[in-house]
């Protein structure tokens, strides 16, 4: 076996120091297969070497948290023996290279993370960022990514119920495709990945292993001189049909007690699954690679260990249960092979054709993985916004804003996703958060993901807080009690101190908000190096939240329900225009500080609104976010076809009042007769509340301006994306 050298290590993306570290922990030079295993386990993706120190500071516990970060996904308790298992994950780079397959396999990967723990996926979300709408690649990327997400999720029969999409030139060379999966399990049937015990069979199930995803750079080594470009596809093709079978087969086996531990083969497939299972179980694993089901002839141990073929799982069974398990996987027409055994050596040992081809202490791969405290600097603070001229017509500005890239309707996207399969979707895409009933019960979860990258860019700490707060607010707006979040931290190159600074501060902001809102982080994913030629993306820490509603019949939604209702605004309006969509779209200025976040106020206002919904006193709510109050009102009008007459009800400029992006605000519509009581209840709760006007007619009228027709607003709002996509 060829001994690896420093050059090989560098080809594999390892640094010289990391190479020396390998020599130290191995006490000898590794061979190429072993080097490949190290390179994968010590990669940013698997080891979190740049981010781990900071992630450790996030709050991860609460009485309802069953499993925090560290397993395939986080688990929370929603009562009655039910658990929700969820996580978000990125597939950014593959989606840029091949948008359909990249996005599809991203969806497949995150679903496996969730069902490997024993959950049936019940909801999918996606957070997408594309470049400038006018960029020549954008249309192609949007259409491929959306078709890929739909293609995989729809076939799986899991409803895709919510998401978010932004366009900004900072993503021209690096789009973001983050997918979130939410699953349902029983609290006493949660499966972990530890390969405990010695002498237990290690079983491979799912699809066969091919040469998928073995990266060009790591293939540059001598061992593969005859492998042609043809043989090295670096983009994986998803097979949702096989995944659906794998899901059903796993859940069927999980109904028995045959499984000791189970883990999906995600990035770095067999390598990371076997190492992580052994590490968590405090055991060793011995694999006979001759037994690995291969799709192609002549696959080497190196290829088998590094392949990223999709739709595969690794399990450790109780001894003697193999036949029973095999029967289930055969029924579902899936590959099933006993490929190894757990040991007490705490080593990962691989044999192939009678020879030992790798022998590595598991701890060296896991605990000894490098850990960096990368230098960071605090990014420059955004300068004050300065004067903003008073807008001449709120209605005219609104007409432009609702048809702008970040505010236009996402219908073209979400109508390609099956959002109602499983027949438990109560709030489809288009609401503040989606609502999915827990099957055969009267309770439901609410889910949504959010982040406002331009705020994070202007102020990483406040932007991190805001991402959490907005997610929390969206869950609250439908009547759910927010319980926990997952995150997907997308940033540029962490070796640049200013990017690392964004990361560190944003994570602090997230942690701060999660603590203040009792909204712990139970799982997550980090995607770094999202930059091209030194141009980093906007820092984009996406937050995916889950909330619980005990009585699904008590929920609120965005559309006005009828004319003659009073419109109330909850929360304080200062007219903050810094980093607002208004100044960006209308004045071409991406300037000013991000809005201030006060988490005590956030919580107080949100708790008040939720209390009204839970009491059955409120059914029409929309939170105020991008575009401010005027846009929130327009969304309520467009979704119902009902207009409103409203008037400025505060100090400050009209522009600031209608388009400012102050936080912690909600718009409510209530029967006229309820206004007084709600206002007095708000006063008692210390919550700012004011009446803005009432619903009426079919146009929106601000401060006595000429009304803008809701129909016209809606036409512009609905038209933008289909037009873009029609080329």
């Amino acid at each position, binding site marked *: 076996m060829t001994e690896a050298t420093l050059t090989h290590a560098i080809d594999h993306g390892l640094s010289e120091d990391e190479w020396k570290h390998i020599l130290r922990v191995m006490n000898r030079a590794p061979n190429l297969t072993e080097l490949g295993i190290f390179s994968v386990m010590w990669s940013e993706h698997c080891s979190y070497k740049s981010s781990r120190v900071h992630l450790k500071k996030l709050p991860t516990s609460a009485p309802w948290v069953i499993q925090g970060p560290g397993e395939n996904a986080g688990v929370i308790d929603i009562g009655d023996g039910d658990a929700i298992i969820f996580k978000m994950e990125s597939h950014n780079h593959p989606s840029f*290279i*091949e948008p359909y*397959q990249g996005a599809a396999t991203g969806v497949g990967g995150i679903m496996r993370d969730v069902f490997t723990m024993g959950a049936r996926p019940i909801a999918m979300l996606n957070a997408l960022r594309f470049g400038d709408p006018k960029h020549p690649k954008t249309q192609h990327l949007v259409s491929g990514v959306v078709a890929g997400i739909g293609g995989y999720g729809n076939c799986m029969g899991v409803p895709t119920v919510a998401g978010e999409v932004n366009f900004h030139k900072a993503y021209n060379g690096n789009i973001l495709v983050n997918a979130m999966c939410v699953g349902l399990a029983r609290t006493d049937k949660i499966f972990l990945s530890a390969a405990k015990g010695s002498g237990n069979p290690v079983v491979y199930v799912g*699809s066969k292993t*091919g*040469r*998928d995803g073995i990266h060009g750079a790591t293939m540059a080594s001598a061992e593969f001189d005859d492998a042609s470009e*043809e*043989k*090295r*596809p670096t*983009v*994986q*093709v*998803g*097979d949702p*049909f*096989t995944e659906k079978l794998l899901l059903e087969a796993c859940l069927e086996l999980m109904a028995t007690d045959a499984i000791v531990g189970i883990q999906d083969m995600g990035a770095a497939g067999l390598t990371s699954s076997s190492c992580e299972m052994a590490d968590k179980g405090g055991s060793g694993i011995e694999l006979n690679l001759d037994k690995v089901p291969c*799709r*192609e002839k002549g696959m080497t141990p190196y290829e088998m260990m590094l392949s990223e*073929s*999709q739709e595969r799982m690794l399990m450790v069974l109780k001894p003697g249960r193999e036949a029973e398990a095999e029967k289930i996987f055969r029924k579902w*027409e899936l590959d099933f092979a006993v490929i190894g055994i757990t040991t007490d050596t705490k080593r990962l040992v691989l044999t192939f054709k009678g020879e030992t081809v790798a022998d590595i202490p598991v701890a060296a791969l896991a605990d000894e993985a490098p850990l960096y405290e990368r230098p960071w600097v605090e990014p420059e603070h955004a300068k004050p916004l300065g004067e903003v001229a008073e807008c001449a017509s709120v209605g005219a500005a609104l007409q432009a804003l609702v048809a702008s890239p970040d505010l236009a309707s996402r219908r073209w996207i979400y109508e390609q996703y099956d959002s109602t399969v499983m027949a438990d979707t109560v709030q489809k895409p288009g609401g503040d958060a989606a609502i999915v009933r827990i099957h055969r019960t009267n309770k439901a979860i609410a889910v949504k993901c959010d982040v406002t990258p331009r705020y994070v860019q202007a102020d990483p700490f406040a932007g991190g807080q805001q991402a959490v707060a907005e997610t929390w607010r969206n869950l609250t707006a439908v009547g759910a009690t927010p319980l926990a979040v997952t995150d997907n931290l997308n940033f540029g190159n962490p070796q640049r101190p200013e990017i690392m600074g964004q990361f560190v501060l944003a994570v602090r902001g997230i942690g701060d908000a999660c603590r203040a809102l009792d909204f712990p982080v139970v799982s997550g994913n980090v995607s770094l190096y999202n930059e091209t030629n030194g141009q980093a993306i906007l820092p984009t820490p996406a937050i995916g939240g889950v909330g619980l509603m005990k009585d699904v019949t008590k929920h609120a939604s965005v559309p006005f329900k009828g004319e003659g209702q009073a419109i109330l605004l909850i929360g304080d309006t200062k007219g903050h225009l810094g980093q607002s969509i208004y100044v960006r779209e209308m004045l071409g200025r991406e300037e000013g500080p991000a809005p201030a976040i006060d988490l005590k106020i956030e919580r107080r206002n949100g708790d008040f609104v939720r209390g009204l919904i839970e009491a059955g006193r409120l059914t029409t709510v929309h939170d105020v976010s991008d575009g401010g109050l005027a846009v929130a009102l327009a969304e309520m009008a467009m979704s119902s076809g009902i207009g409103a007459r409203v008037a400025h009800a505060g100090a400050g400029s009209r522009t600031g009042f209608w388009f400012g992006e102050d936080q912690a605000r909600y718009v409510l519509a209530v029967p006229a007769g309820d206004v007084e009581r709600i206002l007095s209840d708000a006063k008692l709760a210390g919550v700012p509340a004011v009446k803005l006007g009432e619903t009426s007619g079919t146009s929106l009228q601000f401060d006595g301006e000429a009304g803008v027709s809701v129909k016209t607003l809606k036409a512009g709002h609905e038209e933008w994306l289909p037009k873009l996509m029609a080329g």
Partner: protein
Amino acid sequence: MKARVTVMLKSGVLDPQGKAIGQALDRLGFQGVGEVRQGKVIELELDETDAARARARLSEMCEKLLANTVIENYAIELK
């Protein structure tokens, strides 16, 4: 001139459709069927009389639109 472009997944790239077709044929009792791969075929009319020029234009179409060369190969036939 009529042309036919055939676009197939590169060998080594998983072809779930081909795999499923192979299994279905097997279930239907067709024995002795080896590997099955599924691809696309695109037939076009070109207002071109010169074969070399036609080929050049078709290659460009394939590179730009008809095939995704990250995972697919294409072949051009003129009729």
